[in-house]
């Protein structure tokens, strides 16, 4: 009863000074909005990345060359190599490898009639790239071993390429130019969307050898390898095997670090989460400061309010309000103030997150998990209690006679 009544009194008091109340809660609004915006974006990212990585499966392993930074400044880095022979050796000698796909990356302009387009990337791959990376061809087919063996000039394109080059309703069989090399479109990949600034629909796939002619001989020495282990339980074994084999092949002395990187799906997930986690932590620190400032603002305005309403407190005490009644009244007022700020901040933060996610191409939709809502509400209530308790205690301790005499 008294609690509800106190809530009503608090709302009336806040309404009486509406502008002041809103300005007071600005710190809380900004703090909560910031945390919710960042969490919603990070969560959205994390969600889609996790989905995608889980899409490739738990047996997925990526092997890539690691640029040697050199031990001394000014000393040229050793040329790092990861070659087709390395790839071949892996599939022959490492037990537990189910499938292996070497590929190279590059950029080139594509043309069709008078249309030109610069795709996000050109991937030169073997026939099993599609299976290793778990991708689906929407129309037509991916290139086959026969295409590769016969050096056929074929290509598989992302759906965006078909649009950009204006290939019409049936792109299959059309001959496009990749740089100066003609290639016949034999497949269009399924639409995948964008993530982390990468457009997966804006990719052109060509047979490995075509890519080597396109990008030059030495690109064949800087390839990427994707593997599938025969089962999730063999992933570690394959990883160790690949590591040992490549160290041996690259003749790396025991004292030197690897010149390549082997990452399992699990590790990639962990790396992503670590990066996103530190983003959240940094923002958390900023938000902590905003909430502190917001809390001090609330404390300040509550102290002003207690002073302004000294006579009111005197009247309430004179007619029978106990210390705890006055304490609760002002505490609820402070909590209400910061909760209103938290609520506005929550809505604002979500709006901001959604807006940012919409404006940046390739960003997944914002996602506010329920724990973030709870955290925002809990935090603002906590700030209200923490910074409201002193002014409220001060009000509750006022002497009724002095309070009534206050001018």
């Amino acid at each position, binding site marked *: *009863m*008294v609690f509800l*009544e106190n809530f009503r009194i608090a709302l009336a008091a806040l309404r*009486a000074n509406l502008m002041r109340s809103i300005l007071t809660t600005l710190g809380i609004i900004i703090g909560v909005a910031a945390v919710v915006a960042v969490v919603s974006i990070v969560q959205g990212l994390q969600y889609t990345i996790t989905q995608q990585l889980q899409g490739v499966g738990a047996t997925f392993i990526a092997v890539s060359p690691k640029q040697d930074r050199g031990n001394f400044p000014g000393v040229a880095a050793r040329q790092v190599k990861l070659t087709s022979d390395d790839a071949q050796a892996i599939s022959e000698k490492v037990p537990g490898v189910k499938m292996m796909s070497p590929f190279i990356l590059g950029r080139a302009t594509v043309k069709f009639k008078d249309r030109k387009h610069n795709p996000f990337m050109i991937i030169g791959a073997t026939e099993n790239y599609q299976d290793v990376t778990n991708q689906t061809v929407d129309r037509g087919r991916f290139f086959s071993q026969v295409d590769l063996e016969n050096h056929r000039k074929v290509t598989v394109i992302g759906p965006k390429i078909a649009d950009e080059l204006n290939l019409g309703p049936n792109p299959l069989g059309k001959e496009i130019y990749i740089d100066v090399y003609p290639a016949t479109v034999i497949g269009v990949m399924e639409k995948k969307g964008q993530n982390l600034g990468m457009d997966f629909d804006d990719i052109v796939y060509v047979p490995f050898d075509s890519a080597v002619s396109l990008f030059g001989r030495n690109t064949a020495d800087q390839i990427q390898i994707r593997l599938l282990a025969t089962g999730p339980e063999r992933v570690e074994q394959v990883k160790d095997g690949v590591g040992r084999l490549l160290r041996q092949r690259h003749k790396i002395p025991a004292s030197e670090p690897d010149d390549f990187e082997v990452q399992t799906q699990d590790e990639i997930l962990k790396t992503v989460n670590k990066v996103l986690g530190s983003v959240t932590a940094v923002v958390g620190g900023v938000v902590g400061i905003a909430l502190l400032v917001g809390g001090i603002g609330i404390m300040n305005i509550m102290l002003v309010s207690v002073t302004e309403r000294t*006579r*009111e407190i*005197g*009247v*309430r*005490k*004179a*007619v*029978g*309000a*106990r*210390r*705890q*009644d006055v304490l609760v009244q002002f505490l609820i007022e402070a909590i209400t103030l910061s909760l209103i700020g938290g609520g506005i901040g929550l809505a604002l933060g979500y709006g901001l997150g959604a807006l940012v996610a919409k404006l940046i191409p390739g960003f997944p939709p914002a996602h506010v998990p329920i724990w973030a809502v709870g955290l925002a509400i809990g935090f603002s209530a906590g700030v209200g209690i923490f910074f409201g308790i002193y002014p409220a205690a001060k009000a509750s301790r006022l002497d*009724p*006679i002095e309070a*009534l005499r206050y001018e």
Partner: protein
Amino acid sequence: MALIELHDIYKVYDMGAEKVHALNGVELTVERGEYLAIMGSSGSGKSTLMNLIGCLDTPSSGSYVLNGTAVQELDDTQLAGIRNKEIGFVFQTFNLLARTDALHNVELPLIYAGLSRQERRERARRALEKVGLGSRMTHQPNELSGGQRQRVAIARALVNDPSILLADEPTGNLDSTTSEEIMQLFDELHRAGNTVVLVTHEPDIAEHAWRKVTLRDGKVTSDQATARATGSDRPAAAAPVS
């Protein structure tokens, strides 16, 4: 047993360089149903005494028994309870909550008494009708005249059916016509059985009461019946306890 028993009451304010003896050994007994005026010049200790009686303040020494309860032994929370249930206080400056209509002002003591909203509303309405403000319930203090504000304050003092109605210079901020109306309201409340103690420095206001106590320098210097006490409208409730 008397309603109020004050014995050897001292109130000393320590002002650093000197001590102010606001009350200097007050002896006073008030029976149920009495109508008492406390008189005295400014600074004689009238307000200090009223605040003690109203449990807004505690004496430096001495004993105060209100309605059988030894007040000086109570803690802060218990005193708040006494103020809420036993005392109705009317101030010179009305002390109503601003931006709050008459009904809600009168309801205030009932909130702290823990009554339901409906019952509060009902009792506040009746109290306002009793003081003649049945048609002004939703008016805020700044929409009411001084006399009307004091009536709201009196309704608030009455709403909890207190044992005693205390008024510290209730007409101090009112013109003489309005003062007379307010005093007639007190007369009426007294006739209805309420115990009334009021402070005034105006002799004709004091003449409304039945008994007149004079303070000087924190001491009771005279305690006598007023002319009215011998009049014909003396109610049975105020019959002397012999």
